[in-house]
């Protein structure tokens, strides 16, 4: 493993569940002394509506809590520790400045129902962010409300449904390529649409002919990811949009991979009617172990009347919330969206500016193609062409030695790297989907390449080493079958005497 970053066991602590710690009466909080009459709860609320105590709730000190979470944090990998090439997840550096800005009391301690006149800073920020995102996407309006990418997809499909309904027929089907994220068919199904799969062509892109064959006037629209999950730009997008529009359908773009072409091309100029943006991908907001995200939806003018309420409008020098949209699909969540996340995206966009955003896309694409060309030969490349922000290999060269994608992924941990996305997209058997992003240096990427090459050699020479990986993390491969067959989803006290 010489010459590469090596994962180590380091000094890692065991840390039991909080429920197995502490002692009765131990406290970790301090509250101000009550200065109103100390009435018993039973005097204010009927006893039958009250509980006794919360059984099993922890009783620990502040020190216990700090140590508990600090120790557990050390069992995690994060971008702050190293390279995180998780394909389609755009794990770029999360700027700390954005965190500080989100914690300013004027933002963090603002109540959503406080008067508009006293919320002008927050509303101005939202209004300006909408302008920026509309310009980046080449769209007319942006709803900032959806809470995450899949929520944005759902909102987008609702817009399409409302648009068709206003024309008399919501239609029945949505076309989705076989390379799509699972959220695409799931979001369509939540809106009651039947999903019609479209096969990708031999070059890894959707071909106009395949769309034309299934496109009819019961198809509400198509959901395309661009660049797609193979990291390839859908170069027939303009023709496909024409075919879909020709039968009255709408073109939805899953914007999860927008990082590949910000400032270089715009979805709205390609015939796309609606797109969601994953700000926790393209716009650098931290993923936090699975959220919070935000999934703004950018749309063309003809869909704007159906936008969720409220929208943010500017009247003179004042910013207001507008609920007066008679054709709106309604509300998709409470209040106005994940404001704290959106403000981090705003800070990011203002930090990079137009030049920096374009540069980010270019470097992300250079980094991905560099990995593609350097690993070609060591790993099988099912679609041998330049990629955009991510490249997809598979395990075809390792399978003869009985080493599979999962083994390669787990072995990477021993080298100090987070594995790529694996077994996705589904159209590549044993896929390894690698997305480096622009925030990694050439040296880091070279270390990753060296580790991947070393693993390819190990697969031939010492397969058990790879199949037994990972060796360094605190725990080894988990019994996931047991977890699913005998679900244990919460701690319970041990029965007395056991």
């Amino acid at each position, binding site marked *: 493993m010489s010459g590469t970053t090596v994962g180590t066991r380091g000094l890692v602590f065991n840390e039991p569940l*909080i429920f197995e710690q502490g002692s009765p009466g131990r406290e970790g909080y301090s509250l101000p002394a009550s200065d109103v009459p100390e009435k018993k709860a039973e005097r*204010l609320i009927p006893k039958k509506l009250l509980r006794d105590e919360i059984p099993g709730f922890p009783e620990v000190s502040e020190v216990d809590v700090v140590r508990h*979470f600090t120790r557990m944090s050390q069992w995690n990998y994060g971008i702050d520790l190293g390279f995180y090439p998780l394909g389609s997840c755009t794990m770029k550096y999360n700027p700390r400045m954005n965190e500080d800005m989100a914690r300013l009391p004027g933002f963090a301690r*603002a109540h959503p*129902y406080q008067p508009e006149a006293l919320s002008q800073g927050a509303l101005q920020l939202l209004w300006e962010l909408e302008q920026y995102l509309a310009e980046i996407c080449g769209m007319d309006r942006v709803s900032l409300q959806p809470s995450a990418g899949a929520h944005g997809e759902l909102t987008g499909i609702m817009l399409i449904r409302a648009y068709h309904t206003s024309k008399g027929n919501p239609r029945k089907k949505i076309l989705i390529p076989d390379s799509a994220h699972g959220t695409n068919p799931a979001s369509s199904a939540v809106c009651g649409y039947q999903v019609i799969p479209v096969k990708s062509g031999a070059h890894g892109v959707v071909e106009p002919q395949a769309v034309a064959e299934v496109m009819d006037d019961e198809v509400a629209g198509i959901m395309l990811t661009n660049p797609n999950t193979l990291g390839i730009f859908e170069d027939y997008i303009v023709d496909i949009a024409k075919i879909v529009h020709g039968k009255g359908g709408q073109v939805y773009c899953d914007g999860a991979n927008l990082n590949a072409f910000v400032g270089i091309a715009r979805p709205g100029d390609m015939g796309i009617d609606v797109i969601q943006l994953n700000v926790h991908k393209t716009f650098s907001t931290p993923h936090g172990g*699975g959220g919070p995200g935000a999934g703004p939806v950018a749309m063309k003018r003809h869909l704007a009347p159906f936008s969720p309420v409220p929208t943010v409008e500017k009247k003179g020098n004042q910013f207001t919330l507008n609920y007066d949209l008679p054709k709106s699909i309604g509300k998709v969540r409470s209040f106005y969206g994940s*404001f704290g996340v959106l403000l981090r995206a705003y800070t990011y966009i203002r930090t990079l500016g137009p030049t920096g955003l374009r540069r980010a896309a270019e470097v992300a694409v250079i980094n991905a193609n560099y990995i593609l060309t350097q690993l070609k030969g060591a790993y099988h490349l099912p679609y041998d062409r330049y990629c955009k922000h991510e490249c997809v290999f598979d395990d075809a060269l390792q399978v003869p030695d009985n080493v599979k994608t999962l083994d390669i992924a787990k072995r990477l941990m021993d080298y100090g790297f987070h594995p790529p996305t694996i077994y996705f997209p589904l159209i590549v058997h044993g896929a390894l989907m690698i997305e480096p992003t622009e925030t990694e240096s050439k040296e880091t990427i070279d270390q990753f390449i060296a580790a991947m090459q070393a693993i390819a050699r190990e697969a031939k020479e010492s397969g058990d080493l790879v199949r037994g990986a990972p060796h360094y993390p605190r*725990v080894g491969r988990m019994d996931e079958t047991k977890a699913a067959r005998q679900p244990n989803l919460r701690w319970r006290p041990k029965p007395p005497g056991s």
Partner: protein
Amino acid sequence: MRYIPNTDADCRQMLDAIGVRSVGDLFADIPGAVRLKRPLRIPPALSEADLAKHLRSLAAKNADADRYVSFLGAGCYNHFTPAIIGHLISRGEFLTAYTPYQPEISQGTLQAMYEYQTLICQLTGMEVSNASMYEGASATAEAILMAHRVTGRNEVVVARSVHPEYRQVTHTYARQIDLTFHEVGFTPAGTADLKQAKALLGDRTACLVVQNPNFFGVVEDLAELGEAAHAVGALLVVAVAEPVSLGLLKPPGECGADIVAGEGQALGVPMSFGGPYLGLFATQEKFMRQMPGRLVGATQDREGRTGYVLTLATREQHIRREKATSNICTSEALIALIATIYMETLGKNGLKEVALQNLRNAAYAKERLAKVRGCSLKFSGPTFSEFVLQVKRKPADVLRGLLRKQIIGGLDLSRFYPELKDCLLVCVTEQNSREEIEALAKAMGGGR
């Protein structure tokens, strides 16, 4: 650019290794006609110092709970949060990790989620909790969709005393698959009208949805509502918008709730002008496989060491695609971590004590304001930290008057309830001192 390490020289080396002349060659597959031939029209980059100044000036244009005395609640609560929360969630290992797809290097996130699921079960009295949804309103909508899946029925009975925005969002979701809604009004006590609910419930009802404490702050008798729902084979969905109340109130799980959905913001999460928040979602074991959202389970590794994994993924979109129980993917892991740290720090006694302080402060304010001329209590039922105050003058005028004294007096209910157009929803938490309550009463015309 400080976030992009590679210099032009680094890029040149890489382009040479790739075998192309320029970066443009890597974008040759984007049709020329759709390429952007000008710079994006957004403001030029700002330095860290200049941008911080700009954002501070925007923040300064907003009211905040430090500079104003606020009695606003209505689904977003101003609670004290221990300092350690901000520090612990800022650890890069939590903050900058993805969804824990690789359990060997995600045990920190996974064990924290397992603890979160346990705490939510203990708090709500339910048997299983997922690892988070987006926020209260969409979590409630997902609960209705789940009730529809479980029962195969298409009608929903919802109390009008459920948060208006939760009702609006459930309508948005349910409209997609043509569910029918019936609304249950409220009694002079401010509780859901049980008699009317019984009349609307029937063999086509998927669920009865109530909130507790309800939007007016009134504590419902969940047990009798649960019995009514179960009598016709419908599920009881309980929305909880103020989970701190569960430090004192009987948990929905002990009152017949089949699904608890709600908002976790009160558990230590900043108000942040409406988000990001935390969707709560818990149910009984028999419905576990119909649940939406991520679930963490305990298991063992090859050497028998205990560890945690994401499990029961066959419910989820990345496996089941259009047959999944929901389309949810990224949810609110870091916000759930905030709630976990909050609940563990407050603990058994702390959460009860905060709840009690909310109850007592609100009771004091209620008593005090009811004596102010021109003010009266709209509802007679028991309340937790919020109550509805009927006022003689127009609520908007009352609120405007209070603002002059740096007091945000509550929510003008005419915004959501035409029948309560002369009412304010007032919220009092442990953050509102007696002095502040006195100031409110005085400013509303009640001397002393």
